[in-house]
Each structure stands twice: as structure tokens, then as C-alpha cells.
């Protein structure tokens, strides 16, 4: 199957998402609750970006701003040059930025998997024979081809989420946003999803924005944005972000276990490197002897 994504990645890749000084509040009656305040960021094509933050920190608001679910009260969001406030291009935008949510059951629309996958492209007016190609390609991309004619309700949670991802992929998005898409899964299901998106990112150059509470999942990112009270308070590679233990505490997050232990041992005077993974910590201690 032909690959629709170019392998463009890394520092030379163009900026696919631009968020410029964006603010958004939720207003209901007299109550105003903060969404995001003065957020600016850019994401390059092919990047794997993770948004971290406690519940209510503004992560999901930011994600919804990226595909035009909500539009900024102040500032500007553009995706491949499309301003999210441009009503005339909203369908084009939604096709470019696909979102997968927490509960896979709420995202299934059809009783047979291939029809579920076809739903998105059909709405985009893609011709039937082209849809056939996309179904095969998308199911292959998430390793679910053999389930094509089955019913989604007999699948495990991890398999359902992979179908939900395939349904988005069939629209050939440039950006895939996963909003706590592994929260309801067991460790095996979570592993399946992380393996799938990491492969799509590396092999197909799909731009991925992952919102998660699992620090283990964040370690795999090219870049992490840490949010607190609607603002981005830290940005960088996983090692830079997690070694800033004060900012992690300020954001009410927890370090990965290995990071926490290596940080405490360093503080107590042991000369080992800051560790992100269990293996790094063990290696660091081993070299001491």
C-alpha cells in the first residue's frame, strides 16, 4: 500500500501547528472558568508531542482549540495555514486534525468495523473505490486487518481504541490528537496503543499530540509541554522536563518512579545520572559499584 505521508521530520520539518498567544475561558451564566491563558506553541510536522498537566490544567481545552472544536477568544490558531476561525474551511481543518478520546465505545458509529472506518471518508465525499483503499490501509496501519468484517462490540478495549484510531486515519489527517485515549485500558491495551501510535509517527511521519496522565508514556515524546492553570509552564525534551523537579511539583504531577528515586539519591549525595527509565537507574547504580 502506498504511503500517503512524507517522511519529513525533525528540526528541518515545517511548522504544522501554530498557536499564538491564545486565551479561552468557559463562560456559563456569571461563572467564568479558565481554559487557557496566553498560550503560544508550534508543532513541527512529524513531531511526537505530549501534553502533561493535572485535571483542569487546560490540556483538553488546548487540544479542542487545535481542531476548531472551540475557537480562541484571543490570539490565533493555524493548522497548515488554516485559521481555525475560518468557517468556510472548518471541514478541511477537521479532516486534517483527527481526535481520539478516552472512551472507545462512545466513538463507534457502525455495527461492522469496515463501515465504522468508512464513516469519516464518506462524510468527506471520498469516492467509494478510494474508501475501500483507505479502509484496508487504515486497518493495516493499526494491525487490525483480520477484524474488518466483524462487529466492534466483541473487541477488547485496546482493540476498540485501535479501531477508533483507524477511523481517524482513514480521513488521512496530518495530525492525530489522543486525549487520554489509554485511560480505560489495561497495561496490555495501553501497550498496544502506544506501540501503534509510535509506529505511525516513526514510519509514516504522522504528527502526534498525546494527552496523558501516564508519565511512562510521556518519556517516548520528542517534546513535552507541561500545563498548569491554563498556561504552559515548561517545555522541552523529556529529560529536560522531568529533571526540573520543581516545575513538575508545581504542576502537581509525579515523576516516573526511576526519576524520583534518582533525583532523591542525587540530592543525598550519590553521583549517578538523572534517570528516566528503570533501566537507566539500574545502569547508573551499576556503574558506581
Amino acid at each position, binding site marked *: 500500500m502506498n504511503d500517503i505521508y512524507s517522511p519529513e521530520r525533525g528540526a528541518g520539518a515545517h511548522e504544522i501547528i501554530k498557536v499564538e498567544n491564545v486565551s479561552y475561558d468557559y463562560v456559563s451564566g456569571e461563572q467564568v472558568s479558565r481554559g487557557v491563558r496566553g498560550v503560544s506553541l508550534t508543532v513541527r510536522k512529524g513531531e511526537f508531542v505530549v501534553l502533561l498537566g493535572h*485535571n483542569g490544567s487546560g490540556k483538553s481545552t488546548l487540544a479542542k482549540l487545535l481542531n476548531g472544536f472551540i475557537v480562541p477568544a484571543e490570539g490565533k490558531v493555524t493548522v497548515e495555514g488554516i485559521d481555525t476561525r475560518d468557517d468556510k474551511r472548518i471541514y478541511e481543518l477537521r479532516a486534517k486534525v483527527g481526535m481520539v478520546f478516552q472512551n472507545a465505545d462512545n466513538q463507534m458509529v457502525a455495527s461492522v468495523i469496515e463501515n465504522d472506518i468508512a464513516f469519516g471518508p464518506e462524510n468527506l465525499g471520498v469516492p467509494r473505490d478510494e474508501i475501500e483503499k483507505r479502509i484496508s490501509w487504515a486497518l493495516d496501519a493499526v494491525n487490525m486487518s483480520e477484524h474488518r468484517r466483524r462487529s466492534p462490540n466483541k473487541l477488547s478495549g485496546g482493540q476498540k481504541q485501535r479501531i477508533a484510531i483507524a477511523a481517524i486515519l482513514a480521513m488521512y489527517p496530518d495530525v492525530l490528537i489522543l486525549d487520554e485515549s489509554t485511560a480505560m485500558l489495561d497495561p496490555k491495551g495501553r501497550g498496544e496503543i502506544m506501540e501503534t501510535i509510535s509506529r505511525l509517527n516513526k514510519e509514516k511521519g504522522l504528527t502526534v499530540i498525546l494527552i496523558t496522565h501516564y508519565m511512562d508514556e510521556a518519556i517516548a515524546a520528542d517534546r513535552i509541554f507541561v500545563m498548569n492553570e491554563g498556561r504552559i509552564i515548561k517545555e522541552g525534551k523529556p529529560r529536560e522536563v522531568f529533571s526540573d523537579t520543581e516545575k513538575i511539583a508545581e504542576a502537581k504531577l509525579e515523576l*516516573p518512579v526511576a526519576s524520583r*528515586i534518582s533525583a532523591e539519591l542525587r540530592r543525598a549525595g550519590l553521583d549517578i545520572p538523572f534517570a528516566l527509565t528503570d533501566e537507566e537507574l539500574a545502569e547508573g547504580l551499576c556503574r*558506581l559499584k
Partner: protein
Amino acid sequence: MQIKVEDLSYVYSPKTPFEKVALDGVSFTVNEGDTIGIIGSTGSGKSTLCQHFNALIRISHGKIYVGDKDLTARKLDLLALRKEIGMLFQFPEYQLFDDTVAKDVEFGPKNFGYGKEEAARLAEEALVMVGMNYAEVKNKSPFELSGGEKRRAAIAGVIASKPSVLVLDEPTAGLDPIGKREILELVNDLKKSFLKTVIMISHNMDEIAANCNRVIVLHNGKLLYDTTPEQLFSDPEAIAATDLGYPHSVHIKRLLAERGIELDTPALDADSLLAALKRRYSL
């Protein structure tokens, strides 16, 4: 009060093409005072087992005794049983339904026959116990609460009538790190009060190792292990057989052992691992 499970089996949609054996000859005993973890991959029968404890699923094969009550008895007092054994489902915040938080929490006690005033008093107590400001939230709609608050309100609804046993199905799933810690601290606090026994389903081995004194491992509906976290996580065969993985702290201890660094702890949580490392390096 003991809970005794004897040769429990359960089949979904029996004698149809969709027949599925969910539980297959499961036997074990939960002692008063236990915090027992029920673990196993998705589809291993954990939720089916737990729904038997307060007779949401009626026993089709085998026996369960809660104290001296036989759950297969024809004239089982369901109300008394469910008052004794509280049950918190997965994502319980989806079950909040009333127009105010106070009314939502009162719903349980009222069902168990408490009068209006007594139910209101129990609801207030429960909301305070889960760490909420009663005056502030009582007239709020449950839907105005944040994610973590909703879950605590849902827990308040279950504990309002002071059950002695609490069954929790994935109590921390989907919460942020602080929310997770708060829920587990709450359960431990409740155990110092009226709560005697906790039965907890979790996929998070860090939580199981740090909080449970016993674990039951289910696999394809069968009971594979009935042991302690220390025993289970020091048995690589058991871990390999179940897809569950190690808690991080145990995993680190094992990686160190492979490199010739032995520690004097089972390392069931990060704090005891850290303490053991500090001892070893005389920090």
C-alpha cells in the same frame, strides 16, 4: 466477617453461540481486615467475580458466604447484604444523577431505609469524609464538579451508609497523579474508621503492591494465585503467565539484582526501595 467463595463458576449467554465462561471453579476466602487486590488482564473475570459479592449477579454455580449469610439462599435479604457490602463501579462519576450533590449522596441511605433527616446527616458525614466542603457543594449540581471531585462524590454515595466491606473496580482509572493518590489515601483512612475489608480491582501493579496485603490473580476465569504481593512479584513465572508486569519499584530491584546489586527489601513501593538504596550506599 469473612467472605468465603467456593467453587464459583459463571457462564455468560449459556447454550448460545455467544457462550463465554467468565469464572471457572474459583475458591478463596477474604478475611476481615484484608485489603485484597484482584488482578488479571481484561476479560479474566475480575468484574464478574466482584459483581457476585453483593448479588448483582446471582450465583449460578458454587457458593459464596458473607459472614453466615449464604448468597445462594432463596430468601436472601438483598438490602441488608448491599448495606454491608458497598460497591464502587468503574468510572462511578458517570452514575451521578440527581440535581444536587447532597441529594445524590442521600440516595443510598434512603434506599436502605433511613429517614430523611438521618439520610441527610449521613450524606454530610460522607461528603466530609471524602474531603469535600459540605456547605459549598451540597446544593451544587454534580455536573459542576471537577473530575476528581465527581469521583469523590460518587464514593461518598457508596460509603454514606457505612458498609463494612468496600468493593472497588478500578478506583483510580483515568485520574491524574494527585487524584489517584487522594483516592487511595481516602480508602486507607476509611479502613481506620468503619470500613473493615477492601476488595480492589486494579491494573496498576504499583498500587496493588503498595496497598494490598493479599492478591488474587485471575486468568481466563480461573484462580491462578492466592498469595501476597511480596510472593507474587518475586515469582517471574507468575508474572510472565499473567501479562501484568511488575510494579516499577520491584522492576528496578530486579534489574539491580541482575547486575549483582542485592537489596534487603521486597521493594513493594518506591519509598521502601529508596530507603533500601540509601542504606546500601550509606546515605
